[in-house]
């Protein structure tokens, strides 16, 4: 390994992308990350805890951010996306567009701009469940630790006010999108996943009833830096949530939606049941499943959750969610197969275990990789681009990290001059 090696480009700065980048860099490669959000960390930065240990993602992110800070071989662009690419393994030219943050490197993170800003925007971090100031630090653990001025207020008095409040000349309202061309030897594509648009499963009521949330929204609801400060409050009226129905396969394992299994949702819902059970002592959780898929050692976690008598696991796919006017909650209906009974359960909140769709179902790189019908990458194809993480298959964090570590070596093989 050495400086004569070519650079590796990692597209996507979620857990897969940053892992691939760090592992390659600690092995001696030079790496550049391109991330669309104003911060690194991707979906995991929006999670409350990981299964099965129920540990916070911030712990691993802190280590990984420290590894990036300490490693001069890693550079990155945030708020950026690839706009074109040409070439082949060993010789790629990639154009990226760096979108304006309207905050430059002078930002100290002091927060003066946010103090004076009166405009708000919906919080993308919290999936629109609340609002944030239009001058904002994306999250407490944000790396890079720099504020963002929202595009929405550019050209308004509010933006000017923010700029005037900054003592360090860090706010540049004239910033424009910039194009940067990178010459790299290898490309890792780690653009992650998106939650399925579960409003398409119309009988589950998402988008129609405020108390129907997706699993990713529930993570935010459970987070201490989330929209409710970690309190489980019913969106419709703010009442404390006592009962939650977790609806599995909300889109997954369904030929009308996502025919594949999203792999992680069973464990995610088991984990979610522990969130509510731990914080609301007299709460009850109901998990409606087809099969509980807790592979390998994760079985222990399933066994642990099963021991809580206030968590009910019911085999049966939910067929109907409707509003229950008496309680202000929701009525969940379906069949309880193993009990030979009907499900007719009134709950405060319904959480839909939404499936994963690969980032490559939405945006594919200009150079061809091989895909399956669902948009997952099945091979590098003629482009030689190396896929990593959830663009290949639904994966939990540990599997994504494992896969990205492997991708790092594949990239090193290519980037090393032959």
């Amino acid at each position, binding site marked *: 390994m050495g400086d004569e090696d070519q650079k590796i480009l990692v597209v996507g700065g979620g857990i897969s992308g940053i892992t691939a980048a760090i592992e390659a860099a600690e092995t001696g490669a030079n790496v550049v990350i391109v991330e669309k959000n104003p911060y690194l960390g991707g979906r995991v930065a929006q999670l409350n805890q990981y299964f099965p240990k129920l540990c916070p993602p911030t712990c691993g992110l802190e280590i990984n951010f420290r590894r990036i800070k300490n490693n001069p071989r890693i550079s990155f662009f945030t708020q950026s996306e690839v706009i074109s690419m040409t070439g082949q393994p060993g010789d790629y030219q990639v154009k990226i567009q760096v979108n304006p943050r309207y905050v430059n490197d002078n930002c100290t993170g002091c927060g003066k701009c946010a103090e004076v800003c009166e405009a708000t925007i919906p919080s993308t971090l919290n999936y629109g469940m609340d609002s944030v100031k239009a001058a904002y630090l994306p999250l407490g653990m944000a790396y890079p630790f720099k504020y963002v001025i929202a595009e929405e207020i550019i050209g308004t008095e509010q933006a000017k006010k923010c700029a005037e409040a900054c003592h360090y000349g860090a706010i540049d309202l004239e910033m424009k999108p910039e194009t940067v061309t990178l010459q790299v030897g290898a490309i890792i594509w780690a653009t992650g996943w998106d939650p399925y648009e579960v409003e398409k499963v119309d009988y589950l009521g998402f988008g129609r009833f405020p108390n129907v949330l997706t699993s990713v929204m529930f993570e935010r609801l459970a987070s201490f830096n989330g929209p409710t400060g970690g309190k489980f409050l019913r969106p419709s009226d703010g009442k404390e949530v006592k009962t939650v129905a977790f609806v599995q396969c909300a889109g997954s394992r369904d030929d009308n939606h996502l025919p594949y299994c999203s792999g992680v949702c069973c464990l995610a819902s088991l984990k979610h049941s522990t969130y509510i059970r731990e914080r609301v002592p007299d709460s009850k959780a109901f998990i409606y499943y087809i099969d509980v898929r807790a592979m390998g050692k994760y079985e222990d976690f399933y066994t642990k959750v099963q021991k809580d008598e206030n968590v009910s696991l019911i085999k049966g*796919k939910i067929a109907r969610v409707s509003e229950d006017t008496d309680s202000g909650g929701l009525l969940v209906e379906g069949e309880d197969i193993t009990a030979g009974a009907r499900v007719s359960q009134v709950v405060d909140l319904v959480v839909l275990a939404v499936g994963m769709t690969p980032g490559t179902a939405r945006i594919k790189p200009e150079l061809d990789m091989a895909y399956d019908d669902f948009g997952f990458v099945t091979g590098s194809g003629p482009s030689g681009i190396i896929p990593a993480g959830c663009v290949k298959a639904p994966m939990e964090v540990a599997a994504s990290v494992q896969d990205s570590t492997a991708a790092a070596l594949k990239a090193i093989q290519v980037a090393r001059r032959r």
Partner: protein
Amino acid sequence: METKIPFLEVSDAIVMSGAETLYWCMQCGLCSGSCPWRLVPGEASEQFNIRLVQRMGQLGLEGFESENCLFACTTCRTCVDRCPRGVDIIGNVRGMRSMLAEVGTIPGSLKPIVGSLHSQGNPWSGTPEKRTEWTEGLNIPIFSPDTEYFLFVCCTSCYDIRSRKIAKSVAKALESAGVSFGIIGNEESCCGESIRKVGDEALFQKLAESNINLYNGKGVKKIIVTSPHCLYSFKNEYPELGGNWEVYHYTEILADALKAGKISPVGDSVGPVALHDPCYLGRHNDIYDQPRQIIESLPGAELKELSRNRKNSLCCGGGGGRVWMETKAGERFAELRISEALDAGAATLVTACPYCITMLEDSCNVMGKSGELKVMDLSELLVEKL
């Protein structure tokens, strides 16, 4: 609990009888949870679990044969549309019923229907001669090679006194629109859609063969039907037996005529109208917009959507042979529909299927709501304004 011994030879036979997707089922329970029987009380609601019925079929077990179990299925297609595995649940029901039909163990209420179809070619015990009685007083043309469309009137609207009004209004509306159509008459047989769903495959084949030979012999190329059930059968089941025609439901033809300006409804306001989407028009044939277009063309029409509409429409309870079976008052889907129409603020509930009319009107009367809500076929409402 008694230990059951699966008979896999029986399940093989069910598959051979048409339940080709029986094993595709992963037993998730979405079908049973989505079933309209879950919305009403009563025996069928308690006994009929479509998931469990298929499970028994998979294992070749007995115990699903009663009128309130396997024969409760109205083939409304809600479960089929939702099934995550693409299981043809109606096909499976048909296959299981076929197994029973072959050995003659179909519900008693269906036996006279089968008999009539065998002897008279229609399920209503009417003689073939009476098939055209509804045309009395009207000048309905007879189909000839110069006629564009063959108008096939559902047996129900040929024989049932109430339903004949539908046949008449459809014919009148077509005439107003200047459509070239004609009937064949007494030689026509029942399309066989419902009897096939009931499981009598041989009878269906016989009826279909007779119709196909008749229509082809007459030079039929295009068909207009009054019932979505006939539409389904002609369009989806006849082609593989040699019946290849363009088939339209009358609402499709009339919606086109409206668009083309060939008819323009006039007169007093029809007021608030709700539409019941028939299962066989909507879910089975994907026709949702044309009935609405017709309603909206009516003077003063105010379309009131029912809470369950379009692909989520609730069955009237008359499909799959249920129109010939008795469902107790208080346990009928049609009652829910009447209430929904009233809740929606409708004064008229229209639909476009003779079975639906039968079921809805009956419930409306039994519920004592006929003063508040008028149940009409869409053709009837339209014809009043032409």
